[in-house]
């Protein structure tokens, strides 16, 4: 071979490289200016995500858009996901089930492989997840966002069969439909009893928003009916604002009984729709909604990442399990106080974990994490209140760097604005999590 031909060959191939690079560079203004959490174009590895709710769907999306060569597999049994956020509006007849449903088409279009089955078990040694359909998938990194499971029988008499008579509706779907039918069928003059658990549990303001919106429905359709909240604690999220709102909007339709007023329910008779409290008071309900004690979804137990509390301790920098390497856990399943168990927090944690997974696969230190949270609650369709916060790591722990609740002296205009922002938030987080536009 002559020198000349080598040179020519070189030129040809470098020209090809150059063109490839130029092609990549011209795509930069489009791709480079969006939220890539640090993955390089070549990064390829198998990441498995279990759970297609707020935490898992967000993590799968942000993994894939940051590092498109990653093989991202999402395991989720349901083809349609119903959000708990805004399910209280469905109970009040303000929204349809369809309006709180999301699917996985957009995630598939991004290149996420979605398998509709349940993850049954995790073997961290062989790095294998076994699936309900008989198959299995291997991973280099595993992310779990399984949400909550109910602690059946933690309240005497409250088991799966009881939930068919006295729904929890704390996972949205058939339970939401059942509770809605019961509320609609209730006689005017009947009592809606909601029992609220001790901390920690999914969505700290959730029971009180539900009481508010059920009261709103009753005021219009069953004006002689009441709402009774029996609570296993003495304080709850946004309590001052809720009580003020109840006073202003619902008068004495809503009654709240806290722990020291004998509000803690210890036994449920779902067939009779009756509950008994710690000191023996029996309350009879027309509709009984038990929000029971909870724990991390069972797959967290199987993977060995839960501790004696039933929840999952994580490294706050990365949301990697402190007990098992290469398993990251986000969302309601985790111990991440002071962050609440909210969809907003699960989404924010999903992004931090996605970035940490990418950094680790690239052999780099994790980025400095930060999270935000805003939880809106509706007192009625025109009256919104909120709690918001920003979280960062301080001295190795998740700390609130700012935050607070809506002003107590806010005008009706501001309350209405917050109710509108609640809808804006719902649309935005749905788009950000599943890509669904409504």
């Amino acid at each position: 071979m002559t020198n000349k031909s080598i040179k020519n060959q070189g030129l040809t191939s470098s020209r090809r490289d150059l063109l490839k690079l130029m092609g990549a560079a011209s795509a930069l203004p489009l791709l480079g200016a969006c939220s890539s959490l640090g993955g390089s174009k070549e990064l390829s590895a198998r990441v498995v995500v279990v759970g297609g709710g707020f935490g898992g769907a967000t993590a799968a999306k942000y993994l894939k858009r940051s590092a498109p060569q990653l093989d991202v597999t999402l395991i989720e049994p349901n083809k349609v996901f119903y959000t708990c956020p805004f399910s209280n509006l469905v109970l009040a007849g303000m929204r349809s089930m369809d309006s709180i449903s999301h699917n996985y088409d957009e995630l598939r279009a991004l290149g996420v492989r979605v398998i509709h089955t349940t993850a049954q078990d995790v073997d961290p040694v062989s790095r294998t997840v076994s699936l309900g359909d008989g198959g299995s998938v291997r991973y280099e990194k595993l992310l779990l966002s399984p949400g909550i499971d109910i602690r059946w029988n933690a309240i005497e008499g409250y088991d799966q069969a009881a939930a068919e008579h006295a729904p929890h509706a704390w996972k949205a779907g058939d339970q939401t439909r059942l509770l809605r039918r019961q509320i609609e069928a209730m006689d005017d003059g009947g009592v809606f009893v909601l029992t609220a658990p001790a901390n920690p549990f999914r969505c700290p303001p959730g029971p009180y928003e539900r009481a508010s919106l059920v009261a709103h429905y009753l005021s219009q359709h069953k004006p002689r009916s009441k709402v009774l909240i029996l609570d296993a604690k003495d304080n709850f999220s946004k309590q001052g604002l809720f009580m003020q709102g109840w006073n202003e909007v619902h008068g004495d339709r809503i009654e709240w009984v806290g722990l020291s007023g004998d509000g803690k329910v210890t036994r449920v008779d779902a067939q009779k729709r009756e509950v008994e409290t710690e000191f023996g008071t029996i309350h009879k309900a027309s509709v009984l909604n038990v929000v029971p004690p909870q724990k991390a979804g069972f797959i967290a137990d199987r993977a060995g990442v839960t501790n004696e509390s039933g929840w999952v301790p994580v490294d706050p920098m990365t949301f990697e399990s402190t007990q098992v390497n290469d398993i990251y856990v986000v969302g309601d399943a985790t111990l991440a106080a002071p962050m609440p168990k909210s969809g907003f927090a699960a989404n924010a944690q999903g992004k931090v974990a996605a970035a940490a997974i990418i950094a680790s696969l690239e052999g780099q230190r994790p980025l400095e994490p930060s999270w935000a949270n805003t939880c809106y609650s509706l007192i009625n369709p025109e009256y919104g209140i909120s709690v918001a916060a920003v979280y960062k790591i301080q001295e190795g722990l998740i700390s609130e760097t700012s935050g607070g609740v809506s002003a107590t002296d806010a005008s009706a205009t501001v309350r209405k604005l917050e109710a509108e922002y609640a809808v804006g938030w719902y649309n935005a987080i749905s788009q950000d999590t599943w890509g669904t536009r409504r």
Partner: protein
Amino acid sequence: MNTRIALTLALMIPATLAFADDRSSAQTALLAASCANCHGTDGKLAGAIPAIASRPATALESQLLDFKHDEQTRATVMPRIAKGYSDEELKALAQYFSNIDAASKQR
């Protein structure tokens, strides 16, 4: 020197220099990711809550600082949120969202 190697080397230099840059832009992207929960992915969703992508950086920055210092009337959650970030972080966020092409179809 072989032209191919020379060219490859020449092209690698900016890539190496870009490394620190990449990391800091990934860091800003992670900071900015929280904004998407209300403003949509990349801040592009317009609705009751406004889109923030493609807006001039100076306008975004001064609005964020106004939120932080309670100088916005009719504000709701933003003053509580803006106080959680340093002025430098707010500036980086403003710059970040102003650089996003609001019209791009990226998911």
